[in-house]
């Protein structure tokens, strides 16, 4: 039997939490594609939000899970991937709603906002809840998808953020 594949990603703030979620998913019998980051070295959440969501919309993974401190940064990045439908949640019931009604394919949580057991409960419910296809739900999804603008050269482009990483290394961005 083929395992269901989950694509997961995080920023450097919550790598430890991501590891615990990933372990949990593997224990539950899922295959995990871990898109990084893999350590606590300062990096930038859009890199991992984009990678994680792209694995989902390409079909390599069934669902995505993204985490940063509050979940906002990485989820708003994931949401800019065409056909990603991202739910940022702090509760199981929201996750369930987003699957049932909007066929959400990426779930986001704040790794420093929500505790690890509640995160696991949220992710479990998200990936085990079926979308309920109705004309109303389909119409809502179509309406949401129609908000997307064109994304030239974005998808699968690993150099998409290079210009900013270069400026970052040159010290352009500083506190």
């Amino acid at each position, binding site marked *: 039997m083929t395992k269901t594949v989950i694509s997961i990603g995080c920023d450097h703030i919550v790598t430890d939490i991501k590891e615990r979620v990933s372990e949990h998913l593997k224990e539950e019998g899922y295959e995990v594609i871990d898109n990084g980051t893999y350590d606590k070295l300062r990096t*930038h959440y859009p890199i991992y939000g984009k990678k994680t969501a792209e694995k989902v919309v390409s079909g390599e993974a069934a669902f995505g899970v993204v985490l940063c401190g509050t979940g906002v940064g990485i989820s708003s990045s994931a949401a800019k991937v065409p056909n990603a439908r*991202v*739910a940022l949640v702090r509760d199981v019931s929201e996750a369930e709603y*987003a699957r049932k009604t909007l066929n*959400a394919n990426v779930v986001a949580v704040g790794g420093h906002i929500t505790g690890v057991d509640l995160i696991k409960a949220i992710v479990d419910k998200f990936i085990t809840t079926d979308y309920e296809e109705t004309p109303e739900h389909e119409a809502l999804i179509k309406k949401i998808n129609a908000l997307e*603008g064109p994304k030239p050269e974005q998808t699968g482009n690993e150099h998409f953020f290079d210009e*900013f990483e270069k400026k970052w290394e040159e010290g352009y961005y500083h506190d």
Partner: protein
Amino acid sequence: MKVIIGADKDGAKAKDELVLELKEEGYEILDLSKEGQDFVDVAVAVAKQTLKETNNGEDKSETAPRGIVIDKWGTDAFMAANKLKHVICANVSDEHSARMTRRHNGALMITLGTAVVGSELLKSCAKAYLEAPFDGGRHMVRIDMVNKMA
């Protein structure tokens, strides 16, 4: 500060209560709620108006307008709003996220869902978001990245 706000029918009551409190505290309110809007309509209306009044989100000053959407679930309006270019929207149900999403993400708007967030927590999240400054600095590189994607 100007607050651009909108609610669907499930968020209307909480929105009215919040607007009352915010007006008392001196906020200028632009309420875009209209009969018959679903959460996508409200999210888009608030997002587009807030983009317009902040030069596509570039104005992140302490007095820059911000958007608030209240509906049943929050996470659905969040899903819709973030599809728009230059929108960084946070679905919020705790005060710490509400504050940090302005400080670190410079969030243009937040969504709040009455199915999940109780009446007092909703107001305190909204205020935490409105009162927080944007930290800028290193956080700008991530926002520039998101904005290129959108």
